[in-house]
């Protein structure tokens, strides 16, 4: 048997191996990210590099919504964002949602006090195993920030990208209704 000499590394392989260093702005704080794989999604970087495990990893194909975050104020699945392509964007994860009474970007308060949506999810029984909850919380904040008094079909359409296998959704929808009432936007 003959042996073949080792194949020299291609430039592409070198580039692939080179550790990328870049900065991401998450919840108002700019982090330096290093040591990631270049193909890592924003979800992996948030969870495994930046210590923000609120966004959950489940389907990795944008089907379940449990990794929902805001990128430049737009609701997206973090698993479908290439982390390095989010350089220069304002990223908001569930940890960075602003509770009532806190100033936007008040990082000390964010995460330590529940938002009205989180409080309503607890009170309405919208949390069971809790895995989908952060994604729902981000999606509900996004909906109610854009549409303060959504109709029932509007709520269902807005939350169609978030899957919950425990609650049957009724209590999550009740939580949305409760937030609308508490915010004084109800009928």
């Amino acid at each position: 048997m003959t042996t073949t000499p080792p194949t020299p590394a291609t430039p592409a392989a070198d580039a692939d191996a080179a550790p990328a260093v870049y900065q991401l702005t998450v919840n108002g704080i700019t982090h330096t990210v290093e040591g990631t794989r270049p193909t890592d999604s924003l979800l992996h970087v948030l969870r495994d590099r930046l210590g923000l495990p609120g966004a959950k990893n489940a389907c990795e194909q944008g089907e379940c919504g449990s990794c929902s975050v805001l990128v430049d104020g737009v609701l997206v699945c973090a698993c479908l964002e290439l982390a390095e392509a989010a350089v220069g964007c304002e990223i908001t994860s569930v940890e960075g949602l602003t509770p009532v009474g806190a100033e936007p970007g008040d990082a000390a308060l964010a995460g330590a006090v529940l938002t009205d949506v989180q409080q309503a999810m607890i009170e309405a029984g919208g949390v069971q195993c809790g895995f989908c909850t952060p994604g729902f919380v981000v999606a509900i904040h996004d909906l109610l920030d854009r549409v303060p008094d959504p109709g029932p079909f509007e709520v269902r359409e807005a939350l169609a990208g978030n899957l919950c296998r425990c609650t049957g959704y009724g209590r999550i929808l009740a939580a949305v209704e409760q937030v609308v009432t508490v915010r004084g936007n109800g009928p």
Partner: protein
Amino acid sequence: MTVLAPTRLDDAVAALGADPSLTVLAGGTDLMVAVNYGQRRPAGVLSLRRVHELHDWHVEGEGHDAQAVLGAATSYTTLLDPALAALLPALAQASRTVGSPQIRNTGTVGGNLGTASPAGDTLPVLVALDATVELASASGRRILPVSEFVTGPKQTALAPGELVTAVRVPVARGPQEFLKIGVRNAMVIAVANCALVLDLDRRRLACALGAVGPVSIRDHDAERWAASHLDWDARPDLDPGMVDGFGRRMAAASRPIDDHRATAAYRRHAVDVLARRALARAWAAP
């Protein structure tokens, strides 16, 4: 792997010309799934996120010649913008059936074209509206009809180093319909879909089918036959026999296959129903 994120279109085109092996990243709703599952490992990525001119739309021309020019990175959510939906109602209807809010915020019309899935929801609409695709490369620009751009399942006429920059969609006056069959309303890939356009000024009917062939399917004979049986002036109730005939013709034009989503026989039946329903709804619309 390098990630390039230019802010100017010229720079994006130049980068792709310098390295045609770059993988273009628009919304990422297709590419990142393949990356996450280890099916694709790009050597380099050209992100279009910061190329702002690709995210905008505008109208060129007036009256019969008006065209909506959609930047390639126009998202499905933008296609639902009421001002744009009023011009391209079937494209808005199709966009509303795509994925979830998260996916619609991210996915783009240029990405739907570039991926060229037989089930791509905007494709039959663009084909029914005789839309064209603008392509740019270091050596210049060219425009292709969508029906020539998509050449097969996940295959396009895109040359190495070429970028989809815009989609030009003629604005037709008259009702339009987009209908889709899937296992539920949200988060579903089409088993069959159907776009139908009534152009009241030109007295033309166009109908394109998706997910029932390698590319979107039209039958110009069936369209002309249907248009000739319509009373465009009085717009009376449709003759049920004519509607049935149109459904049969479209079903016969379809070329479905059996796969894990549905059988060919089911798809052919679905196309018959969808074509009849789309015609009836469009004709009855104000």
